[in-house]
Structure formats: structure tokens, C-alpha cells
């Protein structure tokens, strides 16, 4: 067996262990808590191991070699007439790097959950669900076609519903679960339309057959679609992007994600870092050749323009909301929306590698931040309001330092953190390609640094402002351990993608590995993408100023003189009504409630009353009445016509079939049966003899 065959088998097996863990826990072991978490973690560790073996082996081959000969296995799956839909797995550079970060973050979250979920009555069920969740993400990552990707995408949708509503005794939790499910479903349905449209045009959904075939892409780009002015490629791209808007919580479908904080915190980390929201961006990164086909120079295609606009707007918009939130997890939720928007905007301007890079670094530091906030919540006895915290630095040192690292990475603290390198790359491309996008993103970066500093100061510095914070304690090692590991990645992962032209460091490292490896995923296209020719210090300077400026501002407002208990947020005093609007998230939930939900509920009620009760039930009752009349008529015929002339069958038969009096035909007497066959025969024979 060659190494390639071995890797093929491993790749097929990667999503399997968590799925088996899910099945076994649900079916057999749901009473044994320790056994459940051992199975879940063991299965995830197995997947992790296989994913890492695949990743490190293909790294040795290099990006170009992997692009030329990706690992690919296919089996025929669903016959559809003359063709057969195939299912299969594929590993190209993008898949490899995604497997790398997904497997690490998932494993960290699994281990952490042992501490966080300790004592929960539905402990086993929790591990079953997150195992299925991991299956969804791993399966989606290795999928080699859009249909399979969509199936795993929906598995994750289901898991997010189950996990957000995990504590379904709380009304807010089950409402959040329904909201998440329905909101993402809007995007999913539109995406499914895109998939169907693509299939109807190309007859295939395989990534290799569509994205790697110049002729197919060109054909799609020049064929006009049903919408005038758009090519098929553009129409499909826009439809697919709608899926990302839902899954990655971009404006206007972002509303579900902050509410999703109702789930247990490891779930938040799972949804917001390792899996679900990443899947949304992963899908558009994966489909980028299709989205970008027809691009000329720096002028983007319609889907790219849409992504640039929605991405940059959401990046800034979500950051402004995050500034005014008091719940420790909600701040992170809005920062997730904002950071994902950076990736979307980056793809929109054609910064393919930068988007993928930020996807990876963000997964690490956001998982870290969520797990850190979970540690705070557990340490502070389930307190989530930052206004009630403060002074946790001394009480929870490990959590503090790791959270600080995560926060700095999120802010893009220069050189030292991974977040800086990926965000700086996006900004460098934006500066070169689209100044509007650049300035919006830069302003967003400033706000990001500001609210991150606000969060760190409110949570960890000063004196405790509440009872719970007073008695806070550090969490056990199963929780802090994953924090430390993720903190290492949040610090150092950025160095794999240092631009070669970067002063001093660029020369020192000498090779932008990430760019070469992941960039190879799109083959030739990479060299046609626009980008900065040489190093430009201006965007770098602005990006550094934004990060440091935001952090300093935050320090000045919240850190220099920490808030006292009962004191209002100084920002609320200065911004006045603007702050109220931000705190209420621009009243978008209220708007949606008024515009969409109330009319829908009203319409549903009306339809139920008039259409269902009145019309449909009316017809059904009518049919039932008809059946009754027929039965009565039949009985009459039997009693007075047939039984008068024909011999009765055995009593037993009548007994057995007596219940069937309603039926006109089934009498239980063979003579009747034969008579009816003969009638059928004669009727049709006469028909054919007389009329043909």
C-alpha cells in the first residue's frame, strides 16, 4: 500500500469516529457520564490524529504538488437516471489547513467541556451532540462536492439547534435555538437553490469538475442566467453567498448569533470558532474560483462586489454594537460577526489567501476567547454581566493571561500575535484594491481594539463589583489546559504567513509558507489575482495605529481608573442616545419582529382558520361522508341483491371481513371476486373490440 492510498483511507475515516461516538452514546451509554465523555474525547482524538497525519504528510509534498494530485476518493452513491451522483473526499491545500485547525480546536473544546459541563444532568447527551457537530464540520471539510458539503452543513445546522437550546428549560434558550435554526435556514434555502441551479447547468457538483476546469468555468461565466445582466456563474455565486450570510451571520441575517450565546459556552466556542461560522466562510473560499470567474483586473464580479459591500459594512456595524454590550459572551459574539465580515470583505476584493489566513487565526484566538470567557463564567459562579465583574486578574491568573493573549490577537496587536498578521494582510490588500473597504475595515479595527480592551479591563482589572466576582476562583486544569494550548497558537501561528517583503522579519523567516501552500489551492488563478506588488508601509502604519490606538483608548477610559460598583459606563454618559441605540443593536430584532414575524404569525393564523379548518377539513369530511354513504349503499346492495341470489360464504370469512363493510369490493366471497375480474375483462375487451 502506498502512502497515498493510506492517506486516502485516513481521509475517508476522519469524520467517522465522532459519528460513531454520537451513535454509541445516544444508543447505549447515555447513563454513564464518564464513559460518555471518554468515548467522545477518544473518538475526537482519533480524528485529530488522523487529520494531523494527513496534514503533516501533505505539507511535505508542498502546495503545488498537492494541487496537481489532490488526495481523492470517490464512490458512486445515488443513481439519478443515466448518471450517478458520487460521494467522495478530497484533500487539497485548503482542506488540509482547515482539517488542521478544526481538529485542534475541536479537541481542545471537547476536553474543556469535561470541566465546564461537570454536574450537568444531560452531560452524556451534550457529548453526543458535540460529537455529531464535529462530524458535521470534519465531513464538510473533506467533502469533494457541493451536495455532500450541504448535507454536512445541515447536520451542523441541526446540531446548532440542539445545542443552543441545550438548556431548554430556559425560555430564552429554546427561543434562541429556534431563531438560529430559522434564520440560518433562510440562507440555506437560497444556497440550495444555487446548488440546484449549478447542477442544472453543469450536470455535476464535484469541486474538481467545476472549479478546476477552465472550460466549465468559462462556459458558466459567458452563459446568461435567468436574471438579466447576470451570468450563470454570478447568479450561482450570489445564491451560494446567501448561504454564507446565514451561516456566518452576516448582515442582515446576523441576528441569530448573539442569541446563540444561550447555549453552554463550549458550544459557543464550537459554533463561533471551530465549526459552524467557519463553515460559511470556508464554503465561499472553496467556491472562490466560481465566484471570481469573469473578474477583470481589480474589477470584481457581482458576487464579489456583494461580498465586499456586505463584508465591510458588517465588519464595522457589528463592531459598533460590541462596544455597548455588557454581557461577556455577547461582546465576543459581535466580534465574531465582525471578524467573519473581514474574511468576507477580503474575498470580495480578491484577497483569497488573506481571507483563508484570517479564517485560521481567528479560529484559534476566538476559540481561546470563548473558552476563556467560559472559564470566567464558571469561576465567577455563572455571572455573565461584566458590570458585576472586575478584579479577576489575581483570582484567575491563568484565565487572565490567556484571555489577554486572545484579546490582543483579536485586536491585532503588532508582531506578537497571530491576529495581527492575518488582519494586516487583509488591510494591505484593501489599501491596494479598494480604499473605501480599507477605511471601513480600519475603523472597524480601531473599534475592535477598543471594545477588547474594555472587556479585559471590565472583567479582570480593578476591584470586584459584585458578590460572585468577590468569591471567584481559578478553574480546574481540564479547562485551563486547553486555554494555554490555544494561547500558543494565538501567539505564534501568524509566523507561518509573514509576507516575504515585511521589513526585518520577512527576511529573517524568508518564506511566506501560508501564502504558497494555501494559495496553491486555486492553481493558476492565484497569479491573476490583483494584489500589492511591493511592500507598502502606509497601510501597515495605519493598521498598527488602529490596533494600538484602540487599545490605548480603551485603557484610558476603562483601565486607568477602573469602574466602581454601581457606576455607569462612561461611554453611556458621553454618547447618550447613540449608546442606547447601540446597546439595543440598532433595534433590528424589533424591526424584524414587526416586519416579518408578526405578519407571518397573523398569516399562519388566518390560513389555519380559513384554509385548513374550513377548506381542507371540509373536503376531508366530505369524503368521509361519501365513504359512509357508499358503505350504506353497499350494505343495502348486499343484503337485498347479492345475498338474495348468491350462496353465503363461510361464517368465519364474514366475521373476519365484517369490519370491511365500508368497502364496496372486499366481501370475502370468492364468487364476487371472480365476478369482478370477469367484469373488468369483459368491459375492456368490449372497449377494444368496439372502438379500435
Amino acid at each position: 500500500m502506498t502512502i497515498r492510498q493510506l492517506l486516502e483511507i485516513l481521509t475517508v475515516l476522519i469524520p467517522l469516529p465522532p459519528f460513531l461516538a454520537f451513535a454509541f452514546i445516544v444508543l447505549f451509554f447515555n447513563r454513564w457520564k464518564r464513559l460518555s465523555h471518554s468515548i467522545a474525547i477518544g473518538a475526537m482524538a482519533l480524528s485529530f490524529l488522523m487529520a494531523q497525519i494527513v496534514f503533516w504528510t501533505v505539507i511535505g509534498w508542498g502546495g503545488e504538488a498537492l494541487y496537481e494530485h489532490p488526495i481523492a476518493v470517490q464512490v458512486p452513491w445515488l443513481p439519478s437516471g443515466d448518471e450517478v451522483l458520487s460521494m467522495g473526499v478530497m484533500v487539497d491545500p485548503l482542506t488540509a489547513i482547515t482539517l488542521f485547525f478544526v481538529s485542534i480546536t475541536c479537541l481542545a473544546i471537547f476536553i474543556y467541556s469535561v470541566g465546564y459541563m461537570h454536574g450537568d444532568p444531560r452531560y452524556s447527551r451534550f457529548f453526543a451532540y458535540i460529537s455529531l457537530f464535529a462530524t458535521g464540520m470534519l465531513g464538510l471539510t473533506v467533502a469533494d462536492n457541493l451536495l455532500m458539503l450541504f448535507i454536512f452543513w445541515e447536520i451542523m445546522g441541526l446540531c446548532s439547534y440542539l445545542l443552543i437550546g441545550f438548556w431548554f428549560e430556559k425560555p430564552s434558550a429554546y427561543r434562541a435555538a429556534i431563531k438560529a435554526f430559522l434564520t440560518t435556514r433562510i440562507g440555506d434555502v437560497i444556497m440550495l437553490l444555487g446548488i440546484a441551479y449549478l447542477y442544472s447547468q453543469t450536470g455535476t457538483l464535484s469541486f474538481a469538475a467545476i472549479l478546476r476546469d477552465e472550460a466549465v468555468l468559462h462556459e458558466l461565466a459567458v452563459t446568461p442566467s435567468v436574471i438579466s445582466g447576470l451570468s450563470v456563474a454570478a447568479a450561482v455565486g450570489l445564491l451560494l453567498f446567501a448561504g454564507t450570510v446565514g451561516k456566518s451571520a452576516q448582515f442582515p441575517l446576523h441576528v441569530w448569533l448573539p442569541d446563540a450565546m444561550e447555549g453552554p459556552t463550549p458550544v459557543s466556542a464550537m459554533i463561533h470558532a471551530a465549526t459552524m461560522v467557519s463553515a460559511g466562510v470556508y464554503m465561499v473560499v472553496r467556491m472562490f474560483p466560481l465566484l471570481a470567474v469573469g473578474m477583470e483586473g481589480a474589477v470584481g464580479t457581482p458576487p464579489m462586489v456583494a461580498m465586499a459591500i456586505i463584508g465591510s459594512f458588517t465588519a464595522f456595524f457589528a463592531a459598533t454594537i460590541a462596544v455597548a454590550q455588557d454581557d461577556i459572551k455577547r461582546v465576543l459574539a459581535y466580534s465574531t460577526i465582525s471578524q467573519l465580515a473581514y474574511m468576507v470583505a477580503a474575498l470580495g476584493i480578491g484577497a483569497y489567501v488573506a481571507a483563508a489566513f484570517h479564517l485560521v487565526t481567528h479560529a484559534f484566538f476566538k476559540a481561546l476567547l470563548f473558552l476563556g470567557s467560559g472559564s470566567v463564567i464558571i469561576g465567577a459562579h455563572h455571572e455573565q454581566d461584566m458590570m458585576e465583574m472586575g478584579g479577576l486578574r489575581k483570582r484567575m491568573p491563568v484565565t487572565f493571561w490567556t484571555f489577554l493573549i486572545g484579546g490582543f490577537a483579536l485586536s491585532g496587536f503588532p508582531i506578537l500575535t497571530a491576529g495581527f498578521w492575518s488582519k494586516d494582510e487583509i488591510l494591505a490588500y484593501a489599501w491596494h484594491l479598494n480604499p473605501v473597504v480599507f477605511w471601513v475595515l480600519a475603523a472597524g479595527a480601531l473599534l475592535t481594539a477598543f471594545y477588547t480592551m474594555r472587556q479585559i479591563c471590565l472583567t479582570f482589572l480593578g476591584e470586584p463589583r459584585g458578590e460572585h466576582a468577590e468569591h471567584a476562583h481559578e478553574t480546574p486544569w481540564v479547562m485551563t489546559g486547553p486555554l494555554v494550548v490555544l494561547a500558543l497558537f494565538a501567539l505564534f501561528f501568524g509566523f507561518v504567513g509573514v509576507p516575504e517583503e515585511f521589513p526585518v522579519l520577512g527576511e529573517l523567516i524568508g518564506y511566506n509558507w501560508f501564502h504558497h501552500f494555501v494559495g496553491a489551492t486555486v492553481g493558476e488563478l492565484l497569479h491573476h489575482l490583483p494584489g500589492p506588488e511591493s511592500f507598502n508601509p502606509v497601510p501597515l502604519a495605519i493598521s498598527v495605529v488602529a490596533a494600538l490606538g484602540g487599545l490605548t483608548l480603551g485603557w484610558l477610559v476603562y483601565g486607568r481608573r477602573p469602574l466602581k460598583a454601581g457606576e455607569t459606563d462612561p461611554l453611556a454618559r458621553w454618547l447618550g442616545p447613540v449608546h442606547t441605540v447601540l446597546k439595543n443593536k440598532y433595534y433590528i430584532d424589533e424591526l424584524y419582529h414587526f416586519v416579518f414575524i408578526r405578519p407571518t404569525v397573523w398569516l399562519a393564523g388566518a390560513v389555519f382558520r380559513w384554509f385548513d379548518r374550513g377548506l381542507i377539513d371540509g373536503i376531508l369530511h366530505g369524503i368521509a361522508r361519501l365513504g359512509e354513504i357508499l358503505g350504506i349503499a353497499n350494505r343495502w346492495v348486499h343484503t337485498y341483491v347479492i345475498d338474495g341470489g348468491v350462496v353465503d360464504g363461510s361464517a368465519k370469512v364474514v366475521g373476519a371481513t365484517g369490519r370491511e363493510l365500508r368497502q364496496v369490493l372486499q366481501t370475502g366471497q370468492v364468487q364476487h371476486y371472480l365476478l369482478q375480474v370477469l367484469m373488468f375483462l369483459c368491459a375492456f375487451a368490449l372497449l377494444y373490440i368496439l372502438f379500435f
Partner: protein
Amino acid sequence: MGGETVFNAIWLLTILPELLLLILALIVLGVDLALPAERKRSLGVWTAAGLVIVLLVSLLAPVPEEAAFGGLVRADPLGRVFRAMFLLGGVLVALMSMDFRPLRQDGPYYGMLLFSLLGMCLMAVAENLVMLYVAMELTSISAYVLVGYLREDTFSAEAGLKYMLFGAFTSAVMLYGLSLLFGLTGGTGYMEVAAALREAPFSLAMVGFLMVLVGFGFKVAMVPMHFWTPDVYQGAPTPVTAFISVASKAAGFAVMLRAFRFIFPSLGGEWVALMVAISAVTMTLGNIFAVWQKNIKRMLAYSSVAQAGYILIGVAAASRLGIAAAAFYLIIYTVTNIAAFATVVLVSNLTGSEDIESFAGLSRRSKFLAWGLMLALFSLGGVPPFAGFIGKLILFAGAVQSGLIALVVIGVLNVIVSLYYYLNVAKVVFERRSEEEEEPVPIPVPSRWVLGFTMAAIVILGVLAAPVFNWVWRASGAWF
């Protein structure tokens, strides 16, 4: 010309499985004499093991492509698919019979089962009107005996008599039709008949078609030749019911598909229109009547009528996809229905009742049985991701390809109706409590094998249909 050669030894290869079946039947009957009474249950193992060997031989042995015995039989790939399907059904029914108390020690019963199978295998490959009739009679007569096998049981005896009366009548009509065709064309080989039929008067040919259809319709239980099903299904010993519901029905479809494809193409749109109508009526009546049933075997009888209606969609489509879909659906239907009947055998062994109500609390008495029944019902009802869903999907796809959109709409509506009574049983199994629910249902080893195999097949054919479907699809190529 084939007629000039009187005998060619290579022809024996064409009917090798049939020859082996005959030998197996004789062996089983011989062993029955040799075994002491208390060990006679092992006859089921003999039968099943022998059938597995025959099945393997029928799949693996080389077979000449051309017709054998002067055009009497032709073991083409699709015929071999059907043959394998019957043999598989036979294996499962033989195992299942070992757990059915009144029959399990009865040597002649197993022998009769094998003779019936022999007839079916010949039906699958017959390419001559006389051969067809003889094969069908062999199948039917053995089946009459099987249905009425429990002479002490009035239900069984009566069912056997009814089955025979109905069968004899339809068989007579069919024989009349066959003689009409012979009179019109002067030939008995399918190809000769088809060639001469193009010149024959249309109305007479159509009447011949109708009469033959009556015979086929009896086998597949389509309206209006379905009347015997509920009474016979209920009265027959349950393993026999399973056997009739799958293998006998599949054999009927095997001859129907071949005859329509090769004898009647010159009748063109007329027979298709008739089949469309019959298909729609069959599934609708089957489903509506099934809703009312309280006895699970009667319910499954009407359900099998409805299923025949679905398969008729493929017959009516009359295309390569339609035919392949029908054959593929029959494979799925075979494993699915056997799973359902196997649970009925075990439950009624314990409760002595075949009422749907007697399944109350089954999920607490045996998870394995409850899930087996559940999978079977889901598959029959076409719930994804189980096999029945894919089967119906491809059937409908074939109909759409042939432009029978209206029939597909009726089919889909029918599937919805059918879910009502399938899920109703599932509700009783999982939700209804019963007083005996503490008492577990013992599952003997043969049933374990049957259920394990069929459950796995239901799931695997559902999530990974392509390998088996491709096999059927390739086989169907020989007809086009």
C-alpha cells in the same frame, strides 16, 4: 435456427440453478426421512444453505447469452437478476420458517417451497408462451399447497382453497389468452409472436393482451386481480405469506416486464395507457383499504397491493430506466417486506395474535424487533434515508423521463397516505403501553440472522444505492 439442434449440453448451463434447485429439493426430502423428529428443525438450515449455494452459482457460473432449448428459455442478465432476487427471498423465508412453530419441522413444506422457487426461476428466464405457462403453473400449484398447508387450521385451509380458486380462474383466462395469441401468430416463442403480432388485427391482439394480463395481475396482486390478497395473506402461515408477498410478486413482475417488452411493443400507447390507469387505481385502492385494517397481515396485504401499484409505474414507463427501477425496487421490497413479516412471526408466536394492537409495548419488550419493524415500515413508506425512498425516487424518475408526470403526482400523494398506516403501527410499537411489556420477546438465532441481514440491507441500500442499482442497470441493458 435453434430448432434444428435437438440438444446441446451447454444449454444445461442456462438452467443450472433450476437443476440444482431440483436436486436440493430431493436432498431435503431425503434428509427429512433420515432425521429423527426432534432434529427436523435443521431442515431449514439445509434448505437455506443449499439455496445460498444455488444463489452463488446463479450469480457466478458462466451462462451462454443465446436462448436455450430451441428458444424456450434465455438466461439474460436481467433474468438472472430476478432469479437471484427469488433465491434470496427463498433463503430468508427458509430461515424465517425455522421459527414458525407449526411448520418448522415439516420436510415436505421445505420441499414445496423449493418447487415453488424452481417455478419462479423458470418464470424469470422463460421466453416461450408454453414454457411461461408451465413455469407459472408450477409456481402457483406449489403455492396453493403452501398457503393451505396447515390443514387443521380453518383459516389456512380456507385461504388455500380461495387462492386456488382464484388462481385457477385467472390461469384459465390467461391460457385462453395465450391460445388466442398462438392462433393469431402461429408461434409460441416471444420473438415469433411479436413479429407476427404486428400484422394481426389490433383489437384481437389487445384482447389477448388483456387475458394474459389477468394471469400476470393475479401473481403481482394488482387491481382488479388483487381480491385474494387480504384473505390469503391473513390465512396463510406467516412465512408463506412473506414468500407470496415478495418472491411470487417479483416473479409475476419478471414475466410481465419481459412479455410487455418483447411481445407487445406493437400495441404501443394503448397498453401503456391501460397500465397507467391500473397503476394509479392499484396504489390508491391498496392504500385506502390498508388504512382501515386492524390485523397486521391484512394491513401488509393491502400495503403489498399498493406496492405493486408503485412498481407498475416502472412497468408503465416502459423505458430502460423504468424497467431497471422496477427490478431494483423489487429487490428492496423483498428485504423490506421480509423484515416486516419476520417480526410478525416472532410477536405472534408470543402473543398468539396478529392484531396491530398486540404490538403495543414492543419497543420495551425488544428494542431489536421494534427497530426492525420500524425500519421496514419506514422503508415501505419511503422515508429517507432508507431503501424504499431511493427505490421510489428512481421509479418516479423513470416515470418522469417517460412523461408520466400525472402518475408520479398520484404516486407521491399515495406515499403520503401510506405513511398514515405505516406510522400508525410505529406509534403502537413505540408509544402504546401494554401489561406484558416487561416480558421480553425471545429472538431465536435464525430470525436474528434474517432481521440483521434485512435491516442492514434496508439501511445500506438506502444510503449507498448505486452499486446494486448499477448492477441492475447494466443487466437491463441487454433488453435495449
